């Protein structure tokens, strides 16, 4: 047993992180919020580096890697708060022409919602009767659909990976702010009340990380359900606590903290969310 990232896995993660730092940094995130819409050029670039074709066999023109690698890539996407129907397009690689290369943007019905319906070239699932919502997340347009779609375990896991990345960013941001913001003559991070918020942020991230990575290795449905529950919690509570650590600054539109929280909320409504996963894990106790 060697439950640590291999050298190749670390290289892959660092590669995706660098690409996203170059192509979708904080400035790009702000710009995207001002002018929402899918960046097709970026989508194709993701296709070129194999983001969508990561798990497609090499014989089919894919990269031929596995779930652990996909999870690492999606964690980075979650950390960068990269917008777009990433999971749906990734899952469509190999079945929908152009998805693997990022030429085609694929959306999918997940739970009772579809993300990015109007921007997508192809929609997987029954989106008839879709009604637009005024989405809480400025970077995820949403439609409601009458017929909810059942969870696909890989989609549940990749969502967990995105949540993990967002939770990690929330923890980093909170700690950074706590180190530099001063009140009463010292950094606020020296106050125990703040320090403990940060410690709990990290604890939730680390527990979720172990669960998500393990689920990527085993692909076991119960492991995946556990990973999703822990990662949803880490992302949502992490973003809230990060906001608290930022004080009034955290409540402004300019700060990026609300974007973390809103995206985390959107993802918690995808198929495989709390009730479903909890019931699955309850049933597993009887097995």
């Amino acid at each position, binding site marked *: *047993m060697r439950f640590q990232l291999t050298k190749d896995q670390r290289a892959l993660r660092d590669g995706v992180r660098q690409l996203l730092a170059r192509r979708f940094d904080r400035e790009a995130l702000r710009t995207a919020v001002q002018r929402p819409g899918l960046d097709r050029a970026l989508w194709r670039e993701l296709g070129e580096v194999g983001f969508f074709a990561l798990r497609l066999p090499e014989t089919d023109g894919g990269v031929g890697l596995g779930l652990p690698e996909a999870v690492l890539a999606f964690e980075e996407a979650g950390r960068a708060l990269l917008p777009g129907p990433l999971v749906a397009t990734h899952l469509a690689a190999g079945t929908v022409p152009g998805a693997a290369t990022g030429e085609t943007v694929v959306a999918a019905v997940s739970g009772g919602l579809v993300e990015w319906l109007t921007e997508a070239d192809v929609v997987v699932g029954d989106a008839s009767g879709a009604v637009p919502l005024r989405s809480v997340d400025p970077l995820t347009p949403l439609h409601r659909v009458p017929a909810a779609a059942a969870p696909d375990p890989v989609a549940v896991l990749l969502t967990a990976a995105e949540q993990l990345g967002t939770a990690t960013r929330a923890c980093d941001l909170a700690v950074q702010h706590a180190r530099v913001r001063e009140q009463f003559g010292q950094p606020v991070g020296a*106050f125990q009340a703040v320090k403990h918020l940060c410690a*709990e942020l990290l*604890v939730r991230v680390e527990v979720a990380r172990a669960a998500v990575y393990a689920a990527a290795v085993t692909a076991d449905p119960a492991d995946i359900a556990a990973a999703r*529950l822990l990662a949803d919690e880490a992302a949502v509570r992490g973003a809230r606590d990060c906001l608290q650590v930022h004080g009034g600054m955290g409540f402004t539109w300019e700060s990026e903290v609300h974007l973390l929280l809103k995206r985390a909320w959107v993802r918690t409504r995808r198929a495989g969310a709390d009730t479903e996963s909890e*019931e699955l*894990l309850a049933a597993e106790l*009887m097995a």
Partner: protein
Amino acid sequence: MDLSCTPEEEQFRARLRQWLGDVLPTLPPKPSPDDWPARRVYDLGWQRLLYDAGYAGLHWPADAGGRGATPTQHLIFLEETERAGAPYVGAGFVGLLHAGPTIAAEGSAEQRARWLPPILRGEQVWCQGFSEPDAGSDLAALRTRAWRDGDDYVVSGSKIWTSHAEVADWCELLVRTDPSAPKHRGITWLAMPMDAPGITVRPLRTLAGSAEFAEVFLDEVRVPVANRVGEENDGWRVTMVTLSFERGTAFVGEVVACRRVLGELAREARKNGRWDDPLLRRRLGRLNAEFRALWRLTQWNVSEAEASGGVPGVGGSVFKLRYSHARQELYDAAACVLGDEALDLDRPWVLDRLSSLSYTIAAGTSQIQRDIVAERILGLPKGR
């Protein structure tokens, strides 16, 4: 990332499973949890069985009397023994998980030869004399004094919350040897025989009703200088080694036990009809996620230790923080499954629920663990 075991590890698991299957049915019935003299006999008897079968001190280095097993093998050992419902280390806790590893890491060759074999053979019970009435979380504020007199230290003061003190043979004791030094500097780590003249043990009753820990009064107790582990006044550093063991590995097996309890709770709920309550079901499902994740975190930490070789790092605090709260939630959920019966001390899980309350206090409170995580892992500034 890889969670599969090597053929050797699988072989190790299979042999262990076989052995447990043979030996567990031959054990005498477990004594009552608050009868410490009986528990001492029982727990040491189990340790002797482990020793004879070659499973004692599995992960200790060979030159400390151990088998030099990999952390993964140790993990398999903990997993299998808990899964089979084998006895808990119990009275052996401090010796096996705490004092022993510290002596192995910091003691002289002579000290290792003297103390480690009897610990492994199940011949000695150790206790931990760290906390004092005015030095709990602020452990370095301890005041129990020791001064040199010839080849002895003479020790006076008092310790509190000393688990198993009543039945212990040895005590890992922290004393102040230089009162004028800054508080972290003047501390020394001693091994004190519990039958030395001048020691009085006064049992304290816990909220669960049992006398599991005690107050220990020390009145000019003579401890040979040869019993000092590490240098004089260097006890704080030695202690940090000890504490990292306590937080790093001591609770690992218990996660498996919690998962077993969770399955038992589900079956009990099915029997008494509460399983039909979706809120309870979902609560148990979420706890399943929690303990699965904690087990994965354990595997992650163990793999990391295997790569870096040896002493567990501050990551143990991350685990301890989450686990201690999860354990309390587990037994609160048990109370929901039991309903009114959760008020009956004779029902299973009720005493466990009471004792789970100590997990966020003992071995460093959650507040102190959060300070450790924030300052040592996240690098936040000290201050209040």
